[in-house]
């Protein structure tokens, strides 16, 4: 190991760790730990949702019925498919097929954009139907407070989710470009794999959001 090293030498990480696989292992552990923090981050919203729902069961039912189950279901399918695309990208990369991997990543990002597009349409429709909490909230009656709280959580939870998805799309797109320019090979696939972990996590959050927001006692 070279001894002459100024403290600000580039690539410090590769200097301080002993091997490439060691670095990949550390990065993956780091990503999983980050995902645990994200679990608690969105988990706080799930806890809030559950508490408010026990207090306003009827308001949540009425609120949920106002969500668009068709668009929501389509979006869920889109996101699950994007997860498949991302998983296939990582699979191709592990097999050293960088070109195929990049293409699957582009597909992932595009599906993510479709999700955001549909979400945008839903938000627009919600606004038009007077479902946005605040002075323009239209539903009345004695369940209105519960319904308004439902939609407050709906917008907050799907909004936070959409923000995370947007960041994911941007990173997937950037990594796809880097991949096309030969940046990652089979030996250096860890960053892409870790990005995949992030993407799948965003998917898992939606897997729970969907029934809690769209499928509350639809009958």
């Amino acid at each position: 190991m070279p001894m002459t090293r100024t403290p600000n030498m580039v690539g410090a990480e590769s200097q301080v760790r002993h091997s490439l696989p060691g670095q990949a292992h550390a990065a993956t552990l780091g990503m999983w730990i980050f995902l645990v923090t994200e679990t608690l981050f969105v988990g706080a919203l799930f806890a809030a949702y559950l508490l408010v729902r026990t207090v306003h069961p009827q308001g949540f039912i009425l609120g949920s019925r106002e969500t668009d189950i068709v668009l929501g279901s389509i979006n869920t399918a889109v996101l699950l498919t994007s997860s498949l695309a991302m998983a296939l990208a990582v699979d191709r990369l592990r097999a050293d097929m960088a070109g195929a991997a990049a293409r699957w990543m582009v597909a992932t990002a595009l599906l993510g954009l479709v999700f955001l597009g549909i979400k945008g349409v839903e938000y627009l429709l919600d606004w038009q139907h007077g479902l946005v909490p605040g002075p323009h909230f239209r539903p009345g009656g004695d369940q209105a407070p519960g319904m308004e709280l439902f939609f407050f959580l709906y917008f907050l939870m799907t909004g936070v989710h959409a923000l995370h998805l947007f960041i994911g799309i941007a990173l997937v797109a950037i990594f796809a470009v880097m991949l096309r320019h030969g940046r990652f090979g089979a030996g250096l696939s860890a960053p892409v794999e870790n990005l995949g972990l992030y993407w799948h996590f965003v998917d898992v959050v939606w897997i729970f959001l969907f029934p809690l927001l769209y499928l509350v006692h639809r009958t």
Partner: protein
Amino acid sequence: MNGSSARRLVGVWVLLMLLLALTVGTAFLPLGVGNTLLNLLIAAVKASLVVAFYMHLRTAGTPLPLVASTGLLWLLLLVVLTLADALTRPSLSAPW
């Protein structure tokens, strides 16, 4: 090796789609609280599939499954103890 790993990923996707159909379909059956429980169960299965097969937790080395379970466990702790308060509070309505 190449094709079979991809096939497995697609197989998982098919399962996920089926489970999605199931959860949406059963939402229209009048099962009362059973709807929510069923939906959450199906969601848990879908999530487990994604975590195990797409996130490779099934084949991951030692600390990773422990790390992942810790996150889940802690979330459960937050939810359970908070609900324990909310569900056992007496209902005291305001006089007005």
